[in-house]
């Protein structure tokens, strides 16, 4: 790890200008990759550029991206939440149970969000209240939350959601813009403002860079971390509403393995897994890239598991390449 390097850090005589930094940033690299994939997709399949087709493509990533925004904040603060996919399953199961009791859409939405909040609060309490490592706690709650849906559902499924409920996953706000995509755009703006333009956002970075220093400079570390886990739970609840509405049914295996995809999205977006740095625009671009890659492969009839190889390679190479690049440059300078 980084701590084993004993070479002094290179300090430049003058900082680079804004434009130069922007050009060299991770986000601009992602933008180039996104454009290339977009170009590649439109060349590979004549159907790709159709507006309705592009609209369909967004369903691939919007639900995961909604969670990825909150996850980005959690990871920047130096923690991780692996229980998000299980929160989706539990929230979806709770909504399905409410349907069997005859409740209608507004109640279902409230239940989905409430279950998300409660699960997030449980994570937050265990991590900040008892001071336990988040990776182990959320591996535990990951089993617990999905386990609860398995207890309730077994090998059964809940169906019969009301027609009005299907709007969240299948409805359109205007022309080709689905509710999910609109939600994605709005949340992207909200999270970007919260992280980059508010005291709260600065505090999240401060905690991720040096928790002790943050505490001594008067930041309420535990409270902010608790809020972040609460927020992640809420986003998982929201994603659960969208996904359940889109699928129209609930099985305990719903959204299985999504936690890894969400973390991949966040890391691909340039967020340091060790905390302290990362941006929302980066996460947005990573979401677009992952969405377009899987959709483009889908158009070419590539099986899903082969796509996952690609995502795995992408995850490792986007982190490895800058390291190799920096090393090669250092060698050239000497």
């Amino acid at each position, binding site marked *: *790890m*980084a*701590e*084993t390097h*004993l070479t002094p850090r290179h300090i430049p005589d003058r900082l680079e200008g804004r434009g130069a930094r922007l050009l060299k940033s991770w986000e601009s690299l992602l933008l180039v990759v996104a454009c290339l994939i977009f170009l590649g997709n439109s060349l590979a399949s004549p159907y790709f550029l159709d507006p309705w087709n592009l609209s369909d493509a967004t369903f691939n990533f919007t639900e995961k991206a909604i969670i990825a925004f909150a996850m980005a904040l959690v990871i920047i603060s130096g923690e*991780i939440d692996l229980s998000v996919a299980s929160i989706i399953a539990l929230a979806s199961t709770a909504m399905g149970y409410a349907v069997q009791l005859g409740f209608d859409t507004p109640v279902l939405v409230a239940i989905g969000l409430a279950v998300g909040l409660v699960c997030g609060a449980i994570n937050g309490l*265990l991590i900040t209240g*008892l*001071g*336990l*490592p988040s*990776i*182990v*706690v959320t*591996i*535990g*709650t*990951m*089993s*617990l*939350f*999905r*386990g*609860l849906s*398995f*207890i309730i*559902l*077994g*090998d059964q499924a809940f169906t019969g959601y009301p027609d009005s409920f299907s709007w969240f996953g299948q409805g359109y706000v205007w022309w080709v813009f689905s509710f999910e995509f609109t939600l994605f755009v709005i949340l992207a703006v909200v999270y970007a403002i919260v992280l980059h333009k508010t005291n709260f956002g600065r505090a999240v970075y401060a905690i991720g860079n040096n928790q002790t220093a943050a505490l001594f400079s008067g930041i309420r570390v535990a409270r902010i971390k608790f809020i972040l886990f609460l927020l992640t739970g809420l986003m998982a609840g929201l994603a659960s509403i969208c996904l359940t509405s889109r699928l129209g049914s609930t099985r*305990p295996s719903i959204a299985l393995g999504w936690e*890894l995809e969400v*973390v*991949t999205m966040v*890391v691909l977006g340039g967020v340091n*897994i*060790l905390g302290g740095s990362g941006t929302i625009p980066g996460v947005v671009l990573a979401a677009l890239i992952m969405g377009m890659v899987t959709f483009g492969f889908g158009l070419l009839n590539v*099986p899903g*598991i*082969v796509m*996952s*190889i690609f*995502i*795995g*390679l992408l*995850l*490792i190479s986007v*982190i*490895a390449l800058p*390291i*190799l690049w920096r090393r090669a440059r250092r060698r050239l300078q000497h």
Partner: protein
Amino acid sequence: MSKFLKNRELLLVGAIAVLLALITWRFPPFVAPANLARVYNDTSILIILALGQMAVILTRCIDLSMAANLALSGMVAAMLNAAYPGLPIPIVILSAIALGTLLGMINGALVWKLDIPPIVVTLGTLTIYRGLIFLLSDGKWINAHQMSDAFKALPRDALLGFPVLSWLSLLMIALVFLLMSRTALGRAFYAVGGNPHAAVYTGIDVGRTRFAAYCLSGALAGLSGYLWVSRYAVAYVDIAAGFELDIIAACVIGGISIAGGIGTVAGAVLGALFLGVIKNALPVINISPFAQMAISGTVIIIAVAVNARAERRKGRVILRKAEAV
């Protein structure tokens, strides 16, 4: 009494005893020696995997790719056997171990040479290894009738009244125990996780030690791959899917600190056994097997809370903590 409460392994033995007592109250035949031997046998693969995971966690890393490694090595072993039924079984096993080690080396090299955080590396290789199984097998299953009898029989063959599978796990426990307590490498695992800076100054190569830990976890995953496939007599893309979390759960329950440097072979074995007892007991005491996931989740949370308290009580005597294990 307080000394007893501080000893994680004794505490865990106590917890398993209480668990067994509760099960006996509902279903007495469960504690018959023959049945307990069966439960141990059923947990053998988890024990072997937990030993590898322990070495990795001790060095402040994590290996999320173990189950995928197991599935890939197992699939290759099964395909080798299906294609060349005449190939001696030891060679099949050795090639599964070799492949597992190679996959572990890839993880280790990425952590060592490129300084990529272990969780990211193994998250990536987890999906890559799973995907490779699909590419290799074309999504097809290797079924029992395609495997030779010798291939399937080995883990079941009885030796002195116990299946070879149980003996193999005992052998691995002994080997890893010797490695941890009697070799420089084993002590280096603890040193690297306990304090990487201090380890560097004592002349330990942190990266190389982590690489060795990943090789060990890879080799054990490869061995488990053969054992899994031959025991269940089937190989397909999704075998042992999600098992990586059970392995980590066994370690966490066994008191191996996720922050590195703390943990024992006995802890890992007991942690795995705890999960194994629960898994085997649920059906006989009429609790739906669907409850197993929620129960192991709860156990993980309780275990990590108990361990965190025990670690905090020890205060700042860091050196003695590392020595005591």
